[in-house]
């Protein structure tokens, strides 16, 4: 069939118009250009694998979400995640490798605090924005300008929520004598800051104040000392393994103070799952919770319910998501992948995360964030401040269940 010259020209114009419309319309799930690569390492095996894997899940959930909306700056995002095997040295090596060899576009935050603390100077040296949990207060006081905690995991703030609630308990009903056992590492020691300040303020005498080195294979002596010293509040400033050992010994030896406050271990999902009723009534703190009303929390809870059959997203899933949320807003705000421009945008603007809105000071820290928690009927409930309270705290601690 012969096509007339005029008709052919018309067809060409129509085809060009259709093509230009296709290119101009921002298609959902489609973005042009090379993907933005976000690199770094997580402890996917080794001592911190459980938490590391939850962070990865949170980050990947964010990536799927952002890619389905067309990506960042019109480009899809993808991760280059190395497994640092819970080794701080390897975390540093992989951060260097991601920046210098892989030439990633962005860096993601690592875990635990010791690794994040070690990666912060690497990020600073290469002028890469590093949004992570940080390595407690000291790591943010080194003069770094490219590191941000969004939210940070700050031992110094960890018990603030609990103490704020305790201050509302009538003075005659408050504990009088405290036993404080702290794991001898930067995380454990950072918890002492709020304990020292608040016990003084609330007139609680610290009768025992001892440090121990991991592993704590037996807590019998710790509990016997606390019991004999008639301590009516126990601060077990450690992680999951030492927390479990301490709780089991406390129950077996019939030690039931008015309150047990546990460091980081009790907010790990395994605490409730593995200890059952024996893990109940333990106080702690958090800077993130699926029970907060900030936008995004419902969506995350629905996802973990559907995917992992959990009623609420685990803390570290939230961390991974929140750090990426912050980075996303900073890139969108800066409109380029220039690290200094991203940093400057973060220093000058507010980000909205699942942990709430945040602005950052010159250290890269938001205003102190902490919510008091207590495990009640196998669930981590928010007890403080009052405006986020999900349940009235149970105090004094009921007797151990037989």
């Amino acid at each position: 069939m012969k096509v007339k010259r005029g008709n052919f020209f018309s067809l060409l114009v129509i085809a060009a118009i259709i093509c230009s419309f296709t290119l101009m319309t921002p298609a959902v799930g489609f973005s042009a250009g090379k993907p933005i690569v976000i690199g770094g390492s997580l402890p996917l095996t080794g001592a911190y694998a459980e938490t590391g894997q939850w962070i990865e899940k949170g980050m990947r959930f964010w990536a799927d979400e952002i890619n389905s909306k067309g990506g960042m700056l019109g480009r899809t995002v993808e991760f280059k995640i190395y497994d640092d095997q819970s080794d701080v040295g390897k975390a540093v090596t992989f951060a260097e490798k991601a920046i210098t060899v892989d030439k990633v576009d962005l860096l993601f935050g690592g875990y635990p605090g010791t690794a994040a603390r070690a990666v912060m100077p690497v990020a600073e040296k290469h002028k890469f924005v590093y949004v992570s949990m940080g390595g407690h207060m000291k790591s943010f006081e080194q003069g770094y300008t490219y590191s941000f905690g969004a939210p940070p995991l700050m031992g110094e703030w960890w018990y603030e929520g609990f103490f704020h609630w305790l201050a509302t308990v009538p003075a005659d009903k408050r504990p009088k004598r405290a036993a404080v056992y702290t794991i001898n590492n930067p995380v454990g020691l950072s918890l002492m800051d709020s304990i020292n300040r608040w016990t003084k303020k609330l007139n609680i005498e610290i009768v025992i104040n001892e440090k121990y080195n991991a592993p704590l294979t037996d807590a019998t002596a710790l509990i016997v000392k606390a019991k004999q010293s008639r301590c009516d509040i126990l601060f077990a400033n450690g992680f999951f393994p030492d927390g479990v050992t301490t709780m089991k010994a406390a129950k077996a030896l019939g030690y039931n103070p008015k309150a047990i406050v546990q460091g980081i271990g009790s907010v790990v999902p395994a605490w409730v799952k593995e200890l059952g009723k024996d893990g109940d009534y333990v106080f702690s703190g958090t800077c993130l919770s699926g029970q907060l009303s900030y936008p995004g929390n419902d969506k995350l809870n629905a996802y973990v319910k559907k995917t992992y059959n959990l009623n609420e997203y685990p803390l570290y899933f939230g961390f991974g998501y929140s750090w990426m949320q912050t980075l996303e807003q900073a890139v969108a705000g800066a409109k380029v992948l220039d690290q200094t421009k991203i940093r400057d945008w973060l220093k000058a603007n507010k980000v909205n995360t699942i942990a709430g809105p945040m602005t950052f000071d010159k250290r890269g820290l938001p205003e102190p964030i902490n919510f008091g928690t207590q495990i009640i009927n196998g669930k981590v409930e928010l007890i403080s401040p009052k405006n986020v309270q999900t349940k009235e705290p149970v105090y004094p601690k009921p007797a151990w269940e037989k």
Partner: protein
Amino acid sequence: MDAVLIFQSLISGIMMGMVYALLGVGFSLTWGVMHVIHISHGAFGLLGAYAAYSLLQYFGVDPIASAAMSVPLLFLMACGLYQLLIRPITRAKNIIMASMILTFGLAIILENIMALIWKADPRVLTPAYSSGALIVGPFYFQYPHLVGFGLSLVGITALYLFLKKTYTGMAVRAAWQQPEAARLYGVNLFQISMITFALAVSTAGAGGICLALLNSFEPHSHNLWLIYLFLVVIVGGVGNVIGTALAGLIIGVITGLSMAFLPFQWVNLVTFGLLMVFLIFRPHGIFKQEGL
């Protein structure tokens, strides 16, 4: 110093030490008899712990019964592993080094398999008696400690009697003390090595269950257990069952007394300081005499 605190710390220290001894006795045997430093020994212990965890969670099987099931299963599994992996390296020039490298790899593989099956989440073995105690006057004997101690005592005694009283056991001893003479007397050294390796792995499984009664565990926990394995074996003497048991008790007493008298942060320093002392002054362990 309070007598209750001292006694209580001593009790739990001794019970704990005995569990380390059960976990370590097989490690000591493979090292002594076969010259194989079995780095994945703790990982097999952890396998026993995970098996007990699953049996308790899904079928309500008590860890003591789990130990009875795991021990023969691990024995059979270890026989297969011996043929497949360990036997070939006994031809190596430097068996100790070759075995360390091979079993280090095996430990990593086992760790990853366990992480795949049971996930990286920490686990706690919680039978009904997991946080109960027998109260005698002012003293508390925690049931998990008692069960762990009892199982360890039975395990070590059974192993000792097997080595002392049975023909196969005597052949194991002969292979350890005079391998060439044993071969001349018709002892099949490969078969004996296989039995030794399988026995060792079985005791690791039982020891792992006992340790899981006391502490939480994760796929990488075997690395920590390995430190205690070296401790009991070096203090007790390589290949020495009684020495290993005694080492467990000594470590328990020292740990218990340190907990009572010293700041807690010094306990590990004292315990592992003991390792240094033995390595310098008594590298052969408590007993001068080599053997089982």
